[in-house]
């Protein structure tokens, strides 16, 4: 099959956003060459309140999703992004894969508030069966600004709780939270379109 000038021109000048395709089940060795990319590495101790978010990913049948990829992007404890303020010990970026029981653990610091928004993590969810990756946020129970957060208040009130991690105690200076992701079903997590 020879490429015609028109086909080549279409490729080289197109402004149509490329179509999304699923990450598939075999992304681990491509995207996690060194294993999960933790937000806090080794003995790093970035400023801010240390938190641990534990959760699971479920499909529409309530079964655990054991081949999901989660990407986190967040501000540091002062509400600054790595892009703007390179604190060597905190990138604000993490990549985690779900385990056989669908579980994941996010160890990080509570992000500072950004431009008056409530404290939040941005999350991208990828998996086999997702032709488009999904964008959602994790907010934190009891933190200020939840009632006025510009993104959270776009969500119908009855579904907002799907975005709020539940406090689950503290130990050793670590605040613990629970946050499950439901790709479908009566508890379906809210996903956003930008």
């Amino acid at each position, binding site marked *: 099959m020879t490429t015609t000038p028109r086909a080549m021109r279409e490729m080289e000048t197109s402004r149509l956003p490329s179509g999304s395709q699923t*990450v598939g*089940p075999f992304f681990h060795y491509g995207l996690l060459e060194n294993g999960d990319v933790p937000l806090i590495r080794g003995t790093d101790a970035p400023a801010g309140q240390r938190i641990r978010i534990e959760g699971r990913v479920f499909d529409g049948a309530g*079964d655990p999703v054991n081949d999901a990829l989660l990407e986190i992007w*967040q501000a540091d404890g002062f509400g600054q992004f790595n892009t703007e303020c390179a604190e060597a010990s905190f990138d604000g970026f993490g990549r985690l894969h779900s385990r056989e029981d669908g579980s994941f653990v996010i160890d990080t610091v509570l992000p500072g508030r950004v431009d008056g928004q409530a404290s939040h993590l941005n999350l991208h969810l990828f998996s086999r*069966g997702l032709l488009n990756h999904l964008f959602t946020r994790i907010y934190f129970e009891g933190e200020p600004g939840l009632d006025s957060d510009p993104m959270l208040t776009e969500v119908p009130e009855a579904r907002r709780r799907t975005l709020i991690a539940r406090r689950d105690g503290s130990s050793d200076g670590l605040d613990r939270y629970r946050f499950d992701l439901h790709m479908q079903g009566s508890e379906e997590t809210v996903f956003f379109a*930008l």
Partner: protein
Amino acid sequence: MTIDLGRHGIRESDDPTIPGDYVSPVTGYETNSLIENPANLHQPPMVFDPYQSTRLRGPRNKLVPVASSRTERTAPVYGFHNIGRMDNDLTIQHDGQPLGEKIVIVGQVRNDAGQPLPNTLIEIWQANASGRYIHKKDQHPAPLDPNFTGAGRTFTDENGYYKFITIRPGPYPWGNHHDAWRPAHIHFSLLGRAFHQRLVTQMYFPGDQLLEIDPIYMANPSARARDLLIARFDRRFDVPGIALGYRFDIVIGSPRATPFE
């Protein structure tokens, strides 16, 4: 690093009056079972019945449209050392040469205003020449290649160009339906320069008979968008006598809503 575009360089777009006989190689796969993606008719729906895994995994509620904040307009610029090594030649990662047809893939990453995206991370992964992934969960009984892992990583240069050297992956069977086969493809992941620019897609090969019966490829209802997922055979990028060239450009969309501060 700047991508060497070869002695012919990248030509400016051709005179639009040049007649072309190019016809998209795909025809309609029935897309009546889909739930529309409200964000973009050139993107696949969340649930596409022929691709069975979408049935329990694609959200059934409409996505909530929101304006972007600073969190969506930023992205990591440091810390890539955590992710893995930068390596755009997948054919020299082992002692010997991998089996299969060696290829060069060159492309430009642009935004939807036509501006190049420099310095953005691209990661690829793929099956070997016999259609087998090195992944431990791949059950396909085709042989592994001790000289091929199938993962690479690079950045776009200052003009948005990237280059990979690899082998053409084989098609492989999968469990979606009786005797289902994926067309040959390479998985592409782009981190983007902002959270909202994240893209994961797959690159396909021209002339592949499996494309029009592949529910993942065909899930995109736009024939034009599907066609642009097929690399162009482009001999400007050949390494003569060694590898055949392909061109695969990637366009990153923009958020639709006006941002809030």
